[in-house]
């Protein structure tokens, strides 16, 4: 599970257009959500709800499929047979999660062909952390543990959202995910409590990944204020800062207890407010990387695209002339 759905919200200019919706249908739609009922594909929904959900679920799907690459890199070099099997099973899960999420997004009207075209042409975003490399096995472990942990914070919240197909996909994803976090924790603990060389390798990997981890939940709430309607419609279930704070609460103690340090001298919990304080991430750098200028953007897209192109003849050969496209049901 890799989704950080809150990272790339619609620009504020897009959060309009409600005045064009039928007020009665809109009121019924909101009443259903207020009653705690889920929205299903056959229901009327505001164009903005459809647009934002499509965008969010599609980005989550892309994050799963692209996120499997930096860990997939290490399958052939994972230390030991058991870890190789586990790493492979985890990566297979992530690719499966992409399939589940593409299907959930498809129920909203965007075809898988359109989503994959947008991905390989760099038009759609995915979680920005995967634009960074995994130069060592320890880097792969940091993803398995802490990126997955961050994603779980997000996904457990989103599984309580309002759109039925997304909830069903997330329930299955969370169930499959249970072992990922333990597997990642186990791998990190093994290195951090190992030989001096192993400890050093793990500490360096953590130092490399920490700035990216701090951006994982997206910009501070102060910087992205237009989420009110998305919260009301239960598209977004927790703010970026709430998710980040919860993550820090849960994982900073686990990182420190195995003798690792965090590369931010300002990181501390304010016991009065209950909020973590930290050095503000470099959001300009974040923007630069997410817009294409990161260390691995080109590689991620190129690899995905090569897979698409190399498989094209197989898909053409299998296509039956009488096939017809019907949107998946749920």
């Amino acid at each position, binding site marked *: 599970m890799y989704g950080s759905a809150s990272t790339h919200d619609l620009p504020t200019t897009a959060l309009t257009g409600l005045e064009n919706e039928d007020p009665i249908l809109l009121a019924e739609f909101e009443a259903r959500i207020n009653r705690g009922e*889920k929205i*299903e594909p056959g229901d009327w929904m505001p164009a903005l709800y459809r647009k934002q959900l499509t965008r969010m679920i599609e980005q989550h799907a892309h994050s799963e499929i692209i996120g499997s690459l930096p860990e997939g890199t290490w399958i052939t070099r994972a230390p030991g047979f058991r870890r190789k099997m586990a790493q492979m099973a985890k990566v*297979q899960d992530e690719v499966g999660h992409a399939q589940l999420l593409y*299907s959930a997004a498809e129920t909203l009207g965007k075809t*898988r*062909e359109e989503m994959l075209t947008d991905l390989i042409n760099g038009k759609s975003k995915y979680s920005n952390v995967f634009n960074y490399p995994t130069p060592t096995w320890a880097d792969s472990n940091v993803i398995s543990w802490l990126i997955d942990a961050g994603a779980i914070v997000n996904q457990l919240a989103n599984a309580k959202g309002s759109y039925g197909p997304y909830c069903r996909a997330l329930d299955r994803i969370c169930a499959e995910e249970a072992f990922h976090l333990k*597997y990642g924790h186990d791998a990190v603990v*093994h290195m951090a409590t190992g030989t001096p060389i192993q400890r050093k390798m793990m500490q360096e990997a953590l130092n490399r990944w920490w700035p990216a981890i701090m951006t994982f939940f997206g910009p501070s709430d102060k910087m992205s204020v237009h989420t009110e309607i998305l919260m009301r419609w239960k598209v977004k279930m927790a703010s970026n800062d709430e998710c980040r704070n919860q993550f820090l609460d849960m994982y900073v103690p686990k990182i420190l207890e*195995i003798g690792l340090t965090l590369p931010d001298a300002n990181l501390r919990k304010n016991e009065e407010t209950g909020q973590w304080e930290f050095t503000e991430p470099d959001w300009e750098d974040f923007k630069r990387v997410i817009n294409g200028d990161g260390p691995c953007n080109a590689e991620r897209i*190129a690899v995905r695209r090569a897979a698409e192109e190399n498989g094209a003849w197989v898909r053409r050969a299998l296509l039956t002339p009488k096939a017809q496209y019907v949107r998946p049901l749920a």
Partner: protein
Amino acid sequence: MIQSHDPRMNRLGLPDAPATAAAKGALDQFGTYEAFHQKKEGAPFVYVGPVHAPEADVAFLFAKEQYSRRFACTGLWVVPTAAITVTDYVGDQEWAYDSLPLLTNQQAAATAPPAGPRSGDDTAAEAAYAAGEEDYDIFHLKKRGKAHQHVGKVRASSPAQALQVAKAVFSDQRPVVNVWAARSADFLRSDDGDRDIWTTTPEKKYRDAISYKVQDRIERFKAETGTSQAD
């Protein structure tokens, strides 16, 4: 050329800045099938989700991998999405069959359901099949956000009639938020002989969270290093 930490990527010799890829054509990803699984012997089949596949055998294979790879499973069905007839969705406290068109008394009498389970030597049933009636599988969604569940079969001459028959047969089941009906002949189903495709699932312990006993190692580490380590 793309330079990666992964030697396999480097061997592909991928260009740095490829031209924009052409938009994928319609059906590049095939049509969809809907998949249902059975968690254990005797349990009803429950909807798990769609797969994209060029035909039913491949759909079954993909569904097996996608939906029964990780957890216990004793049966799997796939059916083309287009083969399913869907009612309107209604509220969580309502009954989806109420949204079907109302029948005249005469029509209602004509769709009177065969009571109880059908059997092969039922002469009325034989005559009905001979006259073009077929079995339909019926699925109910009991609550929005949950999954459709198989409730049984009915015999009818069209999907619309199948829903009307189901309305009478399953009249005691409430609430029902949504109903799916599909011709039984359109399903590809696992049979008992297929069970062994799932026998190795529990052996793959490295996929169980419980296999990772990390706390022991943390405690040992803390004991060895003392509390000063974290400072």
